[in-house]
């Protein structure tokens, strides 16, 4: 292909590319605003409290620790008898 033809393809690609990027991110801006609006109206609680409760919740995901804690508790109650 000739360089000039390549360049025309390049300009084409540039327009399509920048266009796509802007359209995609514009749609994303709209979508995010919609999602945030939904999240706020559906769950009207204070997001900060939410964050705090998350912190205390998340460790419980560690199943290994949980089961150890449960077992330890069980053993200590046994012994306490």
């Amino acid at each position, binding site marked *: 292909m000739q360089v000039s033809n390549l360049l025309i393809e390049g300009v084409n690609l*540039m327009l399509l590319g920048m266009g796509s990027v802007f359209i995609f991110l*514009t749609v994303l*801006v709209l979508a995010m605003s919609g999602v945030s609006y939904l999240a706020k109206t559906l769950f009207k609680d204070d997001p900060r409290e939410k964050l705090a409760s998350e912190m205390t919740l998340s460790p419980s995901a560690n199943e290994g620790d949980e089961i150890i804690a449960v077992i330890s508790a069980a053993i200590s109650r046994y012994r306490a008898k």
Partner: protein
Amino acid sequence: MGGAEALWHSMGIANMTWGQLLMMLVGCLLIYLAVAKKFEPLLLLPIGFGAILSNIPEAGIAEAGGLLYYVYSAGIETGIFPLLIFMGVGALTDFSALIAMPSTLFLGAAAQFGIFATLLGALTLNFIPGFNFSLADASAIAIIGGADGPTAIFLASRLAPDLLGAIAVAAYSYMALVPIIQPPIMRLLTTEKERNIVMSQLRPVSRLEKILFPFTVLLLCILFLPSAAPLIGMLMFGNILKEVGVVDRLSRAAQNEIINIVTIFLGLAVGSKLSADKFLTLDTLGILALGAVAFCIGTAAGVLMGKVMCKLTGGKVNPLIGAAGVSAVPMAARVVNKVGLESNHHNFLLMHAMGPNVAGVIGSAVAAGVLLALVGH
């Protein structure tokens, strides 16, 4: 004693070519920049060392049967390593700043102009005798302007494997040079008054929004740009692991073990492409030159879009944060913060710059997807 002769013939000093010597020096330079100047040491150190190892004569470390050959085939040729890095980056990234201020996505979009300007630049270089970049080559080179290493490696491995070494080195080098390249452009394009703008504090973001964000991005990617789905999918997978809070084991693995191990091998494997015959070419010079231009244009486009947003919002947006749209997380955001502080000692722009900064990552993944869709066979 034929043994002594055989030993002599196996020696490096008896076999070394000038090209190999030069490439080892390039490797040493990269290591020096990584260690002494702290330029992206996590990547440039392994890349530099990989360059040295793969240019040792007679050792064949980067040839069939050698360690770096296996690592390159398994990790880069397949595209696995950059995708795992993206998973790790997702698990390490907090998108709160972007969620709180979605309009910064426009800054991340504008900065991608660096990519497409570089594309034209690479094609224009073909007018100079000696350059012969195809559309695929030019696209792979252009992504350097996205200022995102894994994206550049992923796209280059798909579109122009022969140029991968030069592209990766250029991408990471200029990312490291962000604190030097960006400030003059930022100062040139903004007025003192603009740089002084104090932005209002970002609103807090709920946990639910943080969880829904990666799904939103992924949904749009699925609908409109599936060719970007490997990159954006793994980035968002990592972020989901982080945000849901019920799979801490997996989140930690993505943030630490996996990304650390992959970084070592990714670096070494990229370095193994710094062989004399592939790297010491006119193409490399062109790529390095284009890379510098790409970063400048990307920065300028981001700042100019920042000025537009400043106008449109009646002066609520400090145009400096547009410079962070090139990606180069978190370096570019820190540069914005630093330049902002020069004008106003109490103006911390870091949090506001994180928005366009992570938007830039998404933006360059989108640009990579467009290029893959249109140029990739």
